[in-house]
């Protein structure tokens, strides 16, 4: 007799809710960056609207995890899984907030000649989304190699961040008339750098689940 059937079902339900929240966040991020690239303000506004669904899932997952701790009093991998789920959910929620921030910046930039080509923002976005896939798979499949790869990719994002910062500030010196857009690009640069940090946190939570130790992959 499997005495854990109900608990295992609940853990799967927790995982499903997280998958749903992650899928919504990835979609929000892709839309936000697309809107930014194509200066599609309408799409940007939709991203801002749709964030409520992600926030609601965040709350739902938190309450469910707390209830699971109270009723199952979990130990070992079960305990680590629930704790990691709580932390990962809060990181995903922050990532979704950065998608909203990018959308808001997009709305502020409006329709104008895009200066995205002077930056490395597209590369940063691409690497970050790749990192997110790896970090979430590391958690779901218990894959430590993927978790470590995320740490390495975060270093690439950090390098792009520094480079982009320099490029924008230099351009600003020569073209002060572009201040409005350039300030927003600086913000987006920062949002992407922070997004990659939160994704690294997710990989760290995955590593904690797998190995039972605290890892610092963001060095």
């Amino acid at each position, binding site marked *: 007799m499997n*005495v*854990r059937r109900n*608990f295992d079902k609940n853990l799967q339900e927790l995982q499903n809710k997280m998958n749903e929240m992650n899928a919504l966040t990835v979609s929000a991020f892709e839309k936000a960056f697309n809107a930014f690239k194509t200066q599609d303000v309408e799409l940007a506004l939709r991203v801002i609207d749709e964030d409520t669904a992600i926030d609601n899932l965040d709350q739902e997952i938190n309450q469910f995890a707390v209830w699971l701790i109270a009723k199952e*009093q*979990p*130990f*070992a*991998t*079960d*305990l*680590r899984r629930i704790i990691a789920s709580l932390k990962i959910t809060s990181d995903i929620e922050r990532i979704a907030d950065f998608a909203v921030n990018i959308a808001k910046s997009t709305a502020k930039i409006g329709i104008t000649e895009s200066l995205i080509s002077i930056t490395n923002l597209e590369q940063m976005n691409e690497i970050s989304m790749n990192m997110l896939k790896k970090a979430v798979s590391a958690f779901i499949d218990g894959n430590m190699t993927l978790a470590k790869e995320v740490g390495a990719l975060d270093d690439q994002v950090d390098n792009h961040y520094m480079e982009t910062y320099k490029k924008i500030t230099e351009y600003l010196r020569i073209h002060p008339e572009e201040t409005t857009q350039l300030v927003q690009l600086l913000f987006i640069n920062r949002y992407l750098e922070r997004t990659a940090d939160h994704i690294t946190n997710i990989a760290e939570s995955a590593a904690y689940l797998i190995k*039972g*130790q605290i890892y610092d992959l963001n060095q």
Partner: protein
Amino acid sequence: MKQSEGTTKISVKDLDLFYGDKQALFNVSLDIQEKKVTALIGPSGCGKSTFLRTLNRMNDLIDGVKINGDIVIENEDIYKSNDVIKLRTKVGMVFQKPNLFPMSIYDNVAYGPRAQGIKSRKELNKIVEESLRGAAIWDEVKDRLKSSALGLSGGQQQRVCIARAIAMKPEVILMDEPTSALDPISTLKVEELIAQLKKDYTIVIVTHNMQQAARVSDKTAFFLSGEIIEYDVTNSVFSNPKDQRTEDYVTGRFG
């Protein structure tokens, strides 16, 4: 949160125990630390209570028990000495169900000291009060010391049992599922008491309640089929066990 290694109070080496032809403990070795709480966990029939009872030779009372290996308490191999009374004075025991004698609270606690030959009323009064205080039950029973101990609640009776054990001034207290017959509040009182007692005593506790093991103990040994599978600081055993069988047991996959 790793606890520092303390002084070894009881050292068990290569212990085998047989009930007739049936072997119940296999090559058990572990060091129990002084003034710490050591929890023994494992499914029914895994040998944890059998092991606990070897520590004060309670198994000697069972026919056909054969024991190989060493159990050393402070440089003395307890199975090489013949003074079992002295051993049981040093290593007291509290059982699953409160087992008070049908006599007054006072007489229950004074029973051991009287058997040791203490007759002075003044001295006995002192021992009874100190023991009941030590067991965190004095305030509840001080006005009814002469009434029958069996009139107390289960939780109070268990704490009087602990008082009776500490009246003998033991160094080690063995507890065999001391709260399994108690309600949650009485259980917490006994757990609170265990935390106080470990300042003065070395405690070894068998429990089926894993949350209890996690709450009260410094180190935990996981027994399975008469063997020790894992013995580590409690935090590690419950948050990151090394052995898959420990993981499966503490997460309820078997047992």
